[in-house]
């Protein structure tokens, strides 16, 4: 029918009944046929190879590590070994840590991370969109924002520990500061790069400044913002853990720093494993959120 619609996105017009209109001839209409089935089978085969490959990499990595440790090629005093890490995790899960149940530690760190992430992204999005819409204010504040951004913000952790004490507050504050700028700059850029034609169209159709912001700028900046969320969550975890390393009564960071103080590499690695699991779970959830919010976009790899 027409060349550009070859290949099959299952969400395209062909999946449903196409009404008989003149324009239907140009619709991205694709009827999934034999070729698509063959390709799908091939894709499934590839997915299997990828999955097996991934597991293989992990097994080889852990196996080599364990082997080197068992043959004393590497010193377990410095490098630990996978079975030791597993034992440590098992002990923590069964008998709790030196600071109390493992779940409590995870929950404390998670709370700090989520609060920091939530507050930081909210502030970042609001400020970014607002300044993106207000050119004058953005130009006035630009040097100050750049200055603040150039400060190594990790150092603020010590300041916050003094201000907010050893409780959850100082960690949340550090996470917020780390998260804010990444999200802010993306939201700002997103608000700046809105297609001028879309804004002009909305205005002619009758939208006021507030409607333009909500109905054009925000949805348009959304892909920029969701991209920054992935990095932002990493920063939130970093903020929470570093905050705990600097001084805390509970949390994964404290667990790691105590393991370090006890010359216990297995404990440090076990803490890292738990942290990584948290971050991966969050990453998955953010990807889901992104898909949900950006449903209107063509999927990468689809034909348009």
């Amino acid at each position: 029918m027409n060349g550009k619609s070859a290949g099959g996105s299952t969400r395209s017009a062909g999946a449903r009944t196409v009404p008989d209109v003149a324009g239907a001839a140009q619709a991205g209409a694709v009827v999934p046929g034999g070729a698509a089935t063959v390709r799908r089978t091939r894709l499934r085969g590839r997915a299997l190879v990828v999955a097996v490959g991934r597991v293989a990499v992990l097994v080889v990595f852990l196996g080599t590590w364990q082997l080197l440790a068992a043959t004393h090629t590497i010193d377990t005093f410095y490098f630990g070994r996978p079975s030791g890490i597993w034992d440590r995790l098992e002990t923590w899960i069964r008998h709790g840590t030196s600071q109390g149940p493992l779940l409590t530690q995870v929950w404390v760190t998670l709370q700090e991370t989520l609060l920091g992430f939530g507050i930081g992204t909210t502030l970042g999005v609001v400020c970014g969109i607002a300044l993106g819409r207000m050119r004058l204010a953005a130009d006035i504040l630009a040097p100050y924002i750049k200055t603040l951004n150039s400060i190594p913000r990790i150092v603020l952790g010590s300041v916050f520990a003094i201000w907010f004490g050893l409780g959850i507050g100082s960690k949340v504050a550090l996470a917020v500061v780390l998260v804010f700028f990444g999200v802010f700059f993306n939201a700002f850029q997103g608000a700046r790069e809105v297609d001028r034609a879309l804004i002009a169209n909305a205005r002619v159709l009758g939208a006021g400044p507030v409607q333009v912001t909500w109905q054009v700028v925000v949805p348009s900046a959304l892909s920029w913002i969701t991209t920054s969320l992935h990095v932002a969550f990493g920063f939130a975890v970093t903020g929470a853990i570093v905050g705990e390393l600097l001084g805390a009564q509970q949390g994964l960071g404290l667990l790691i720093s105590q393991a370090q103080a006890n010359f216990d590499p297995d404990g440090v690695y076990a803490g890292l494993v738990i942290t990584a699991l948290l971050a991966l779970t969050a990453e998955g959830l953010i990807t889901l959120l992104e898909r949900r919010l950006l449903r209107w976009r063509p999927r990468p790899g689809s034909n348009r």
Partner: protein
Amino acid sequence: MRTELRQDPEPEPDAARQPVTPVPIVLDGVTKRFASPRGEHREAVRDVSFRVEPGSFTAVIGPTGCGKSTLLSLICGTERPESGTVSVDGRPVDGIGQDIGFVFQTDAVFPWKTVLGNVAAGPRFRGVPRARAQALAADWVRRVGLAGFERYHPHQLSGGMRKRVALAQTLVNRPRVLLMDEPFSGLDVQTRQIMSDELLSLWELTRPSVVFVTHDLEEAITLADKVVVLTAGPATVKEEFDIDLPRPRDAREIRHHPDFVRLHELVWKALRDEVRVAYERGLGAA
């Protein structure tokens, strides 16, 4: 039976289909300058005067980059002239008017809204309650031939279908002035012809006053009651031509009409020199 009919809340879309009260558009000695980055002033439009009769279709044609789009911005109210006046319905243009509809050259439908959401956007912006806006939108979606595609997002549609969405989105507001900036320039030749026919029949429904900017002479003659030829930038009016071809017109058939051929010859003579000037300037710049 009768009372039931009276209680029916749906007779309104009929009213939405009625022709609008057309208004005249008058440009009188309009000049527009833009400041270049180096601080010099460049004239985009110089001393332009022409009149668009109420409910008529005027095509503005000129070489690429001559300032045609600036004229539309001035009528629309997004730009103001340095001198001269632009008036719609006898009143000088002051900001974007309620009566204006604008179909852009580039894709300007909202990619995150569905077809129905896009068409309902105008009424929603103007404070029409959601249910009513959606009913109006559904009506226009049907009228531009997209029934069944209400829930689709723009990226799932072809370029021609997206243009239909843009037309419906603009016309649902019942503009009395319809401005179009090379709306079909991104489409292939066959689709352009289909869209020209579509546009003419939609225009017949509500009969707004149209200013249609293009650099395609055949398209201009096919659609318009009057063709205004502009000079290579800064744009001034070189000549106006009345297109007295019979309506309704069929975009493909009309090209073989003897008068079409005659008019094409006539207008092309006026346009040819300007195109050459613009082309040579382009060579000079390159």
